[in-house]
C-alpha cells in the first residue's frame, strides 16, 4: 500500500534527464533551512534555461540569502533525489516524491541571484515571521537539548526541525506524539484563548473570530501536517457550535475533518501521521471510556482517567506503527501514564514563555527557567525509559487481514464490555461472524503466502556490499553490511521489516569499511548465532568494534577457509572457496584478496558471492577448483565492478546469466569500471546495478529463478514473478 502516483504533465521538471547543468528560475515556497553555510529550500519552477517548465525542486546551495517568497535564478547540476532503494523501506526519494519533488539541484558554486521583489504570500510570511520570533525564545533562553525539545513540544517537530536522535528516542519510549503539534496543543491554546476572551467580556461572535484566527495561525506555524489539520478543523467545528449554540459530537467532527482533509489531500489516507492522529482520537472517545469504566472500580478516579487515556491510543496505534515502522513501543504504556498528567504544563508554560519572550526576552527567560525543571524531568524520564530493554518490539508488518481482524476484535471487545452481557447468538449472527473470520483467515493466508524458495537480496547500501539470504528452511544469512551508517539506516531496518529476529550466520568477506562498517550495528541490534570471517588483522575502528561485539555477545566464531561447507538445510549449501591459507596471512598486501568467496547452491541454481576478491584471488580459486565446480547462475561481480576483478578466465569459468554489481551512484572510485561492464555484456550476461536499479532480489525454486529490482522494473527471463517484498 503506497502512494498512488499520478502521471506528470509533459512540461514537468521530472522529465528532464539528470546530470545536466541548468539555470532555474522560480519562487522559494518554503522557509529555507540553514545548515552551516549550506542552504536548503524548495523552489517552485517557472523557467528552466529560459523554457517554461513547472514542478517543484529541492535546491541545495551556498550562502544564506534566500528567503521565503524570493524570486530567484539559480544555476547548478540537476540530479535525481538521492535515495537508496530497498524492499520495504521508504527511501528519501519516495518521501520527496510524495511531496511532489522529483529532482534536486546542486548549486554549490554560486549563491542564487535574486530578481524582482519578494513574492511571498503575506499571510505565510507573517506566519513564518511570528514563528521565527517565537522559536527564538527557547533557543535564546534554554541550553540544548532542552531548547530544541521545548520548541518541538510546543510547535511540533516539523516547525522546530527536531533532530532524528530525539525523535527516535521518543518513538522508542512511545511518546513520539509529544513532538507532534496536535489536539493537545490546540486544545490548550484554544482553551486559554476562550478564557481570555470571556474574561475581557468580548462578545461571543468576536471572541470566536479571534480564537479562529489564533487557531489558524498556530496550524500554519506548525506546518499543516495531518494531525494539526485534524485538530484545527475539529476546533473550528467546536467554535462554530459555540456560535450557533450547538454542541459538537466527536465522531461527526472527526468524520468531517477527515472528509475535508482527504478532499484536498487524498494521499494523506496512506500517511502514517493521518492514520495515527485519527486512530488515537477515535480510540480516546470510543475505547477509553470503556477502559475507564472497567478501571474505576479498583483505582482512584485520577489514576483510571490517566491510565485509560494512555492505554486507549496505544491500542489503536500499535498496528499502524507496526505496519509503517515494523516497531511498536511497549514501554509507551508506562511512559504515557507517567507523563500525561503533567506534560501539558510544559506546553502551557512554553506557550506563555514564547509569547512573553517575544515581547520582552527576560520575561520569557523567567518562565522558561521554571519550565526547565519540568523539561529536564520529562527528558530524563523519557530517555531513561527508552533505554530499557524490551522498550519496543519489532515485527514484520502485519498483513492487512491481520490488522482488520485486530480492529474488529477491538471493537467487539469494546461493545461487549459496554453492554456487559454476552449477545444472543442467533444463527444469522453466528454465520456472519464465522464467515468474516473465515474470510480474514483466507485473506491473511493469501497475503502472506509466498512461493517457498531461496531468496537472495543484494541490498542497496550505496558504495558497499550487503547481501541477505533467506533459505527455504527459514535460515538467515547476512554477508557484509555496507558502510558505517548503513547498518542503522538500511540493514537493521530491512531485517526488522522482514521479521528477521535472528541471523543464523553473518559472513564478513573482509575488513574494509564498506563491508564491515554496518556490522557492529547489526550485531548490537539483532541476535546473531554464527560469524565467519577471514580473520586477517586489520586496524580500523569498525573492525575492532565488530570483533569486540562478537566476543561480548558470545557469538560462535569461525575463520573462513577454502574447502569449508555450510549446510543450510532443505538442500541449500554454502561452499567457501576462498581464502586459502596462503591468502589469509596477516602479511597480505591487498586485503581485498583475502575476501571470503562462497558459492550458494540450491539444486541447479547457484550464486557466486565474491566480496572484493580481485584477479589474484580469482586465479587462486581457479587453481584449486575445476571450472565446472564454479558454474553459477548469478555472479556478484567482485569489488563493486572494478576493473581489478572479474577477469576473463573467472568469467569463463563461472558463466553467469546474471551479474549483480553492488556500488553507490557517483562513487569516487568510479565503480563499476566500463571495461568490466563491456566484458560482462560482451559475454551475454544481464547486468543489474544497485546504484541504478536499487536493491536486487533474486529468488529460485532450485531450478528456475527470477529477479526484481527496486527502482526500475527490469525484464525477467522465464520464471515466476516473485513477491516484491511489501
Amino acid at each position: 500500500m503506497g502512494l498512488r502516483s499520478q502521471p506528470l504533465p509533459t512540461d514537468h521538471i521530472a522529465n528532464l534527464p539528470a546530470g545536466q547543468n541548468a539555470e532555474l528560475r522560480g519562487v522559494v515556497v518554503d522557509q529555507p533551512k540553514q545548515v552551516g553555510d549550506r542552504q536548503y529550500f524548495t523552489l517552485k519552477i517557472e523557467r528552466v534555461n529560459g523554457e517554461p517548465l513547472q514542478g517543484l525542486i529541492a535546491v541545495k546551495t551556498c550562502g544564506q540569502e534566500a528567503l521565503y517568497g524570493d524570486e530567484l535564478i539559480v544555476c547548478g547540476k540537476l540530479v535525481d533525489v538521492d535515495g537508496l532503494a530497498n524492499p520495504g523501506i521508504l527511501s528519501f526519494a519516495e518521501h520527496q516524491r510524495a511531496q511532489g519533488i522529483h529532482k534536486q539541484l546542486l548549486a554549490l558554486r554560486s549563491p542564487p541571484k535574486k530578481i524582482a521583489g519578494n513574492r511571498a504570500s503575506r499571510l505565510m510570511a507573517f506566519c513564518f515571521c511570528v514563528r521565527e520570533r517565537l522559536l527564538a525564545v527557547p533557543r535564546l533562553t534554554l541550553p540544548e537539548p532542552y531548547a530544541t525539545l521545548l520548541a518541538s513540544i510546543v510547535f511540533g517537530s516539523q516547525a522546530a526541525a527536531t533532530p532524528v536522535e530525539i525523535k527516535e528516542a521518543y518513538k522508542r519510549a512511545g511518546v513520539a506524539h509529544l513532538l507532534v503539534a496536535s489536539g493537545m496543543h490546540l486544545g490548550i491554546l484554544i482553551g486559554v484563548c476562550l478564557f481570555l476572551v470571556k474574561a475581557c467580556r468580548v462578545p461571543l461572535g468576536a471572541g470566536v473570530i479571534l480564537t479562529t484566527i489564533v487557531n489558524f495561525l498556530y496550524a500554519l506555524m506548525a506546518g499543516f501536517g495531518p494531525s494539526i489539520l485534524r485538530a484545527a478543523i475539529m476546533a473550528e467545528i467546536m467554535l462554530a457550535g459555540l456560535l450557533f449554540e450547538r454542541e459538537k459530537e466527536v465522531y461527526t467532527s472527526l468524520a468531517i475533518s477527515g472528509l475535508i482533509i482527504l478532499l484536498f489531500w487524498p494521499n494523506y489516507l496512506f500517511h502514517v501521521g493521518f492514520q495515527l492522529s485519527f486512530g488515537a482520537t477515535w480510540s480516546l472517545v470510543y475505547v477509553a471510556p470503556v477502559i475507564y469504566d472497567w478501571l474505576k472500580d479498583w483505582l482512584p478516579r485520577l489514576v483510571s482517567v490517566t491510565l485509560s487515556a494512555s492505554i486507549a491510543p496505544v491500542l489503536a496505534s500499535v498496528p499502524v506503527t507496526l505496519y509503517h515502522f515494523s516497531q511498536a513501543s511497549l514501554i509507551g504504556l508506562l511512559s504515557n501514564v507517567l507523563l500525561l498528567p503533567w506534560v501539558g504544563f510544559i506546553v502551557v508554560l512554553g506557550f506563555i514563555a514564547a509569547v512573553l519572550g517575544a515581547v520582552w526576552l527576560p520575561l520569557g527567560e523567567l518562565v522558561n527557567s521554571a519550565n526547565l525543571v519540568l523539561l529536564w524531568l520529562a527528558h530524563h524520564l523519557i530517555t531513561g525509559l527508552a533505554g530499557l530493554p524490551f522498550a519496543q518490539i519489532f515485527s514484520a508488518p502485519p498483513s492487512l487481514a491481520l490488522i482488520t481482524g485486530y480492529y474488529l476484535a477491538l471493537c467487539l471487545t469494546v461493545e461487549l464490555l459496554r453492554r456487559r452481557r454476552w449477545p444472543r447468538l442467533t444463527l444469522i449472527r453466528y454465520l456472519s461472524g464465522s464467515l468474516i473470520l473465515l474470510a480474514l483467515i483466507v485473506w491473511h493466508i493469501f497475503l502472506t503466502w509466498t512461493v517457498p524458495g531461496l531468496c537472495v537480496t543484494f541490498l542497496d547500501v550505496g558504495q558497499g556490499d550487503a547481501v541477505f539470504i533467506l533459505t527455504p528452511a527459514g535460515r538467515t544469512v547476512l554477508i557484509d553490511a555496507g558502510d558505517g551508517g548503513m547498518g542503522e539506516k538500511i540493514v537493521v531496518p530491512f531485517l526488522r521489516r522482514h521479521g528477521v529476529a535472528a541471523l543464523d550466520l553473518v559472513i564478513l568477506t573482509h575488513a574494509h569499511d564498506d563491508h564491515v562498517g554496518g556490522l557492529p550495528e547489526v550485531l548490537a541490534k539483532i541476535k546473531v548465532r554464527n560469524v565467519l570471517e577471514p580473520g586477517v588483522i586489520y586496524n580500523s575502528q569498525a573492525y575492532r568494534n565488530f570483533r569486540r561485539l562478537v566476543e561480548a555477545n558470545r557469538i560462535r566464531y569461525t575463520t573462513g577457509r577454502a574447502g569449508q561447507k555450510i549446510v543450510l538445510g532443505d538442500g541449500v549449501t554454502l561452499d567457501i572457496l576462498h581464502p586459502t591459507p596462503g591468502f589469509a596471512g596477516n602479511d597480505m598486501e591487498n586485503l581485498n584478496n583475502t575476501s571470503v568467496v562462497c558459492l550458494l547452491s540450491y539444486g541447479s541454481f547457484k550464486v557466486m558471492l565474491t566480496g572484493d576478491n580481485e584477479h589474484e584471488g580469482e586465479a587462486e580459486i581457479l587453481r584449486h577448483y575445476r571450472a565446472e565446480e564454479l558454474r553459477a547462475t548469478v555472479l556478484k561481480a567482485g569489488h563493486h565492478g572494478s576493473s581489478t576483478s572479474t577477469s576473463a578466465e573467472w568469467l569463463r569459468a563461472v558463466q553467469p546469466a546474471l551479474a549483480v554489481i553492488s556500488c553507490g551512484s557517483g562513487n569516487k572510485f568510479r565503480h563499476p569500471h566500463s571495461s568490466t561492464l563491456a566484458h560482462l555484456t560482451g559475454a551475454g550476461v544481464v547486468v543489474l546495478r544497485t546504484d541504478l536499479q536499487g536493491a536486487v532480489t533474486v529468488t529460485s525454486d532450485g531450478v528456475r529463478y527470477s529477479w526484481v529490482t527496486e527502482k526500475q522494473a527490469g525484464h525477467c527471463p522465464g520464471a515466476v514473478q516473485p513477491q516484491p517484498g511489501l
Partner: protein
Amino acid sequence: MKVFFDSILDLIFPPRCEVCRKSNKAALCPACYKQIKFMKPHLGIHSVSVYDGVLREAIHRFKFNGRKRLAEPLGVLMVEYLSSMPSLDPAELDMIVPVPLHPRRLRERGFNQVELLGSVLGKYFGLPLSPVLHRVRDTRAQFDLPREERFKNIIGAFAVNNGQVAGKRVILLDDIYTTGATLSECAKALSEAGANRVEVVTLSRAVDHEPGSVAG
C-alpha cells in the same frame, strides 16, 4: 432558508438528548421525559418533580452548560404539570413573575433560565411574562449557606417595580425550591407591592436528605 440552515447544522452537530446523550431530535428524549414523575403540591407550593435524576441533570445542563434549547421541553413539562393539577388554574391568574438572577450571575451566564421557562409557560397559558422583581442588595450565593443563614442572607434583597403588581394575581416562578428562603422573600415583596394573590410554581424541589432539617 432557516429550515435549510438548520438541517445543515443538524448534519454537523447531530442533535442529541441533553440528558442521556443519545441521538434524538428533541432536547429531552421521550424516554428521559417519561422518567420525570410529577409530585403533589406541598404547602400550597407547586413543584413539578423532585430535584433528582433526569430532572436534576436537565436543569444542570440548562443552567450551567448554557443549553438554552432545554427551555422548551422543561417549559412544556411545567405546562403539562399545571394542566394536570386541579388545585391551580392558570386562567385565574394575570401574570408570571420570574425570580430575578443576580446581575453578576446574569452577566456570567448570559441568560436567566427562569425567564426562559416563564416565556414558554406564558405562551401556552396566554399570560404575560413580567420580570418586575429585581435585586436591590448584593447577596451571597444561597447554595453554600446553611438553612438559617439563607433566610438572614436574603432579607430585603428584592423590590418590585412601582405599581406593576397592585391588585394582580401572580405566578411566582423559580427553577429550584430548596428552603423557600428566596421564594418567601420574593412573595413577601410582591404582597407588599399590592399583589392580590401569589402562587409559587417551581420546576423542581430539592428534598433535603440531611437528618434534622426538613425542607420547606
